[in-house]
């Protein structure tokens, strides 16, 4: 029996220590040692209730190791003193070997083993919460007086409260940590999602992703992309640029082995993730080409790594590599799952971005190919054309088109605007250009050209109403006084004619093309005298915007009214529209200007 101070001061100490203890293990240790000492017990064991049928030892003291080991985990079993105490919620008092034999004949040899005579088994309960039990054992037989029983129960109750508080604290901490981790990860995912949608090139986006990963999840991050038959490292990040440079030099000197198992190159190809909670030195030794290489790799100090595939719809786009080094952090299964989630959402965004970039390129290429590189010289006429794609390079090009076809006695011109943007709109623009050229070559006039174009567009959309277009087509014939214009317009903005310093619209009502099998079109004929100018344009002009309103037809009329030549008109108009929308052009703009050339005729 240990030396101890007065029960009162020992109890005070126990209460103080219990209040300070925050984990079940610490409470268990206090009960099994301090409380046991206070009670004069020679051995003690504290058990926590794990589930409906199981107890687990939190702490034991005073028992020989070989005796306590089998009791670390106990199945509740009625007819055993500890189990009865737990199941009934009442203490079991066994004052000597005789009582053991009487009440628990099966257990008596065990209960009185190690020469222990008396035992008190007390349930640990707070309200209706069953937390476990405590056993205090005494070498000598002991008559538990009413006073002593009361004291033991009180001490046990104190322990139970401490244990209850500690369990709640642990549960609350775990819940809060889980919630914070979840919240943090959700926030992180939404940040990466926004980042992947940013108007940047794929490489810039992935570099930013790598930077973000390094700021929150890992010491190193690298992104690899499959490009054709190759796998390229397109981004690498570490908080220290010197380290990034060091690794770049290292990779230049020792190019990575494409078949290294678990390497980014291999994961990019196989789509199988690689997970290294610990990076053993043998792995580095195996990867190293020579001693110097090994020394250099070791100097990076890699501790743990994850390589997950960037894959979408079964296509392998690349790999995302995360490495822990100097922070000494280690990746666990949760990190692997989260990184796979991150890689999956990044891959989808990446795939969309790639499709988008491809479409963007296709559309721009097509658009560029659709516009005549040079406006042909047409005797008796001066022509000017301008095309402007939207200011924002990320905007899809629209389907604006102009074209000039020389004729023996003048020329035919067309300006068209296909509804919508992107590759599909550009494809329809191509159809319009080639159909119009063909019909003009066949000798058809403006109304017939547009009717035949309408049929071609309907055929292209499978006979159903498809993407529509507005088209203005004019046949311009030289005359002694200038030129005669035959104009038809399929819902296209009315061209303007500038004469005597004034601009007036020329209306040729007509139905847009590509929707109805029967279109109603009208042909208007008018003369352009020497020096008079006609301008055809797309609605990118009139629908240009500043903060408050549209450019509109009135501004257009004012801008072109004073023009003195085809080029002058085109320049004035573009400058005026630019100034109006403060350089922020949303839609594409096409302008085609025809001037009856007074000098050529004189």
């Amino acid at each position: 029996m240990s030396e101890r101070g007065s029960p009162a001061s020992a109890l005070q100490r126990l209460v103080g220590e219990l209040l300070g203890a925050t984990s079940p293990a610490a409470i268990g240790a206090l009960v099994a040692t301090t409380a046991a000492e206070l009670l004069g017990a020679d051995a003690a064991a504290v058990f926590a209730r794990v589930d409906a049928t199981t107890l687990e030892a939190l702490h034991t003291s005073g028992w020989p190791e070989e005796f306590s080991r089998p009791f670390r985990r106990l199945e509740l079993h009625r007819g055993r003193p500890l189990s009865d105490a737990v199941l009934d919620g009442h203490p079991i008092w066994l004052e000597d070997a005789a009582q053991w034999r009487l009440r628990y004949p099966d257990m008596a040899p065990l209960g009185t083993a190690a020469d222990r005579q008396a035992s008190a088994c007390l349930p640990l309960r707070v309200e209706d919460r069953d937390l476990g039990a405590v056993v205090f054992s005494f070498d000598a037989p002991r008559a538990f007086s009413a006073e002593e029983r009361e004291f033991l129960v009180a001490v046990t109750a104190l322990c139970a409260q401490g244990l209850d508080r500690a369990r709640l604290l642990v549960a609350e901490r775990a819940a809060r940590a889980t919630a914070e981790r979840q919240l943090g990860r959700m926030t992180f995912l939404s940040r990466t999602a926004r980042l992947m949608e940013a108007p940047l090139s794929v490489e810039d986006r992935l570099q930013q992703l790598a930077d973000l990963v390094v700021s929150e999840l890992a010491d190193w991050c690298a992104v690899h992309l499959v490009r054709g038959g190759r796998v390229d490292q397109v981004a690498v990040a570490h908080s220290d640029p010197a380290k990034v440079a060091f690794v770049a030099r290292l990779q230049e000197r020792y190019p990575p082995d494409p078949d290294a198992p678990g390497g980014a190159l291999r994961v990019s190809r196989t789509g199988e993730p690689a997970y290294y909670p610990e990076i053993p030195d043998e792995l580095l030794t195996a990867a190293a080409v020579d001693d110097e290489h090994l020394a250099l790799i070791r100097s990076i100090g890699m501790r743990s790594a994850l390589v997950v595939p960037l894959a979408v719809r079964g296509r392998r786009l690349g790999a995302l590599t995360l490495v822990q080094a100097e922070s000494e952090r280690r990746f666990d299964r949760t990190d692997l799952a989260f990184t796979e989630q991150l890689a999956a959402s990044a891959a989808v965004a990446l795939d969309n971005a790639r499709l988008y970039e491809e479409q963007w390129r296709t559309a721009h290429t097509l658009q560029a190919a659709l516009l005549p590189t040079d406006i042909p010289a047409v005797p008796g006429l001066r022509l000017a054309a301008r095309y402007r794609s939207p200011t924002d390079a990320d905007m899809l090009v629209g389907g604006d088109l102009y074209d000039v076809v020389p004729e023996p006695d003048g020329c035919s011109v067309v300006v068209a605007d296909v509804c919508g943007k992107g590759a599909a709109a550009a494809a329809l623009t191509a159809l319009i250009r080639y159909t119009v050229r063909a019909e003009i070559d066949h000798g058809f006039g403006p109304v017939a050209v547009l009717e035949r174009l309408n049929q071609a567009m309907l055929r292209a959309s499978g006979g159903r109403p498809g993407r529509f277009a507005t088209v203005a087509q004019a046949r311009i014939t030289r005359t002694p006084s200038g030129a005669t214009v035959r104009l038809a317009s399929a819902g296209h903005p009315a061209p303007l004619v500038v004469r005597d310093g004034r601009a007036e619209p020329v209306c040729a009502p007509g139905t847009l093309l590509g929707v109805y099998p029967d279109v109603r079109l009208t042909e208007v004929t008018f003369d352009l005298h020497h020096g008079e100018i006609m301008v055809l344009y797309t609605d990118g002009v009139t629908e240009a915007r500043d903060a408050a309103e549209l450019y509109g037809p009135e501004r257009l009329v004012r801008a072109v009214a004073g023009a003195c030549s085809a080029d002058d008109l085109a320049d004035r108009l573009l400058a005026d529209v630019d100034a109006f929308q403060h350089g922020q052009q949303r839609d594409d703009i096409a302008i085609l200007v025809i001037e009856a050339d007074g000098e050529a005729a004189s």
Partner: protein
Amino acid sequence: MTGTTAEVVLDGELDISTYEDARARLAEAERSAPELLVIDLAGLRFVDSTGVRLILSADERAREAGRRLALRLGDGPARRVFAALGLVDRFEVLDAP
């Protein structure tokens, strides 16, 4: 007059930025399968080709489903745009300019 009528009022601007919202509202009205669907465009301050395409496709769906579709065009931008595109006499327009 018998039968059910649904009316969708589109105002403000009808272009690429409001297209999705307007499309969803039309789809919602179409789900109730009314005998007459009225689209009120009279209050629009602006309509571009995207907006016109939305109305054209609603018209196509109405034709396929054997429903009546009618427009109110008001006397503002919607009527101007529909007139310029040669579309006014392609629709049942309920209001006069």
